[in-house]
């Protein structure tokens, strides 16, 4: 006992300095690493600017989405009459269109990803943790859905329910969760073998709590990375759909709609394509930089 006492005394001395420091969780460490990543932080800042502009951009312009300037059809970007990004072939102001399009595109990107993430994480974690026959059956179901072509699925939805922006959220989300579920299941299978899961079982912790406290926090890292890469993918998917005329409906617009219409007048009015396309590209870059930064921050061993 005496010896033990002296041990903790020595430890006390050793730990004294360290104890004053509050513990730093892995999340805090990751955040610190992320902050030091210039490209990723740049991505965050640019993305915030774009999001901010999508909110206030249409307000600072004298025009609205419905205004058609008969005297200024298809003019190039100019400072003179507040058509900063020029106008399209019906005389609508491209500045307003671009930022309204940003609203729709970013919302679709984020919302569809949230849908995909919620379904994918819960489904994948359950399938992975349950394992055995249940897990296998759940994943075979995912395989079957994978075999359905996305476009086919969306065309059916649109013909049955009509064109509707919420339907686009749902349709994209319902397809993209499949990959998410696979990722989460794979991660769960490896986390499940960890001793701390067995320790929790041995302590009598209930299954739901184990999934919530031990499985999901430890699989969420790769999920977050995938999510940041999924947002731009979904923005692109919406662009394809709009390009094919299955996306959002006029007068509402999105970057995909703008690009598809701009492509028709590439020779006469190139800014109609170039401006929204540039913003789309910048957004893609930002998300990819953020995704890379998060991966490095959350998984420092991989570097």
């Amino acid at each position: 006992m005496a010896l033990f006492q002296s041990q903790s005394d020595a430890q006390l001395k050793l730990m004294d300095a360290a104890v004053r420091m509050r513990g730093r969780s892995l999340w805090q460490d990751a955040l610190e690493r992320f902050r030091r990543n210039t490209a990723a932080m740049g991505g965050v800042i640019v993305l915030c600017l774009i999001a901010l502009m999508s909110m206030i951009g249409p307000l600072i312009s004298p025009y609205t989405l419905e205004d058609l300037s008969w005297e200024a059809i298809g003019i190039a970007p100019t400072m003179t009459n507040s058509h900063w990004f020029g106008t399209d072939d019906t005389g609508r102001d491209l500045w307003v269109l671009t930022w309204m399009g940003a609203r729709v595109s970013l919302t679709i990107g984020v919302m569809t990803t949230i849908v995909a993430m919620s379904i994918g994480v819960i489904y994948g974690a359950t399938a992975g943790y349950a394992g055995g026959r249940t897990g296998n059956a759940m994943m075979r179901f995912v395989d079957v859905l994978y075999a359905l072509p996305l476009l086919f699925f969306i065309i059916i939805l649109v013909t049955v329910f009509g064109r509707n922006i919420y339907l686009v959220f749902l349709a994209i989300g319902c397809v993209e969760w499949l990959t998410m579920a696979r990722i989460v299941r794979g991660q769960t299978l490896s986390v499940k073998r960890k001793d701390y899961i067995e320790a929790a079982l041995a302590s009598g912790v209930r299954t739901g709590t184990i999934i919530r406290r031990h499985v999901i926090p430890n699989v969420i890292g790769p999920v977050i990375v995938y999510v940041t890469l999924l947002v731009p993918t979904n923005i692109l998917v919406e662009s394809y759909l709009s390009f094919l005329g299955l996306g959002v409906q006029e007068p509402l617009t999105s970057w995909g709609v703008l690009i598809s219409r701009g492509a028709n007048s590439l020779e006469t009015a190139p800014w109609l394509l170039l401006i929204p396309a540039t913003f789309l590209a910048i957004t893609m870059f930002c998300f990819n930089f953020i995704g890379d930064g998060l991966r490095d921050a959350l998984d420092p061993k991989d570097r």
Partner: protein
Amino acid sequence: MNPVLTLDHLNVSFATNNGEVSAVSDLSLSITPGECVGIVGESGSGKSQTFLGAMGLLANNGTATGRVVFQGQDLLTLDRAALNKIRGDRMAMIFQDAGTSLTPHMRIGDQLIEVLTTHKGHSRQAARQRVLEVMESMRIPEIEKRLTQYPHEFSGGMRQRVMIAMALVCEPDLLIADEPTTALDVTVQAQILNLFRALKRHTKSAIVLITHDLGVVAGLCDRVAVMYAGRIVEEAPVADIFAAPKHPYTQGLLKCMPRLDQLLDAELDAIPGQPPNLQNLPNGCAFAERCVNANTRCHNERPALRELSSARRAACHLLEAA
């Protein structure tokens, strides 16, 4: 007698995200032909990195400075090709995990023969003859059949034998064994240790045995160097270090182990505290924090490794005072 290997003020450090970490500091040691030197230390003491650094096998972010003289040549100045010629031929290394050191898609026999044909320029026939000889001395049953098998068909103990055989086929002057029995079961470890004992009797090569197990050292080594936090803290002939350890760390290490041959019906004499963080080593003696007798000098000034008698060295201020 000229030493086969001399480490002269060897430093090994690693560049990490949190700055430079020094794994081995200012380490000097020489090994004479035919002797068996035990390098003892806990994880993080730098015992493996010392010899990986000496052989040019450090991870990409590691650098070794100082001098490593092997048979008159400074290994640290040699290029990769020249090093490869020495490694595996005149100098061989055995690792803890034999499974990962063998190529999984080549037959064991071919891997062994290849060592000889590349290093010694033997014909396949002559090489095969030599391999058979060595395998027989390793007491591997059914050698002919074994040679045509793949590594995954071998058990852990067998793979370690193959590794030893591979290290020995070229009759190296220096054999470095890094925890050769740690991954093995006790009864298999006994077999391998027995092999090492026979090896010591029958070959002229010097052996460096890196281990954390003092029992293994007691049975095999002639001389022992104890490492702590990247430095040698004590060096002595094997009998002396067990009979009369001088450094407080060595003393603590010997006292804190439960022993199979003695029954102690009391608490073990544990060394308090934890080994220091290599990123944040103290200015004084690295062991001072855990040393019962440490004084202010120990905390402020690093003790040098001094000669106590002709064959003994230790790094401790307390020994100086006494």
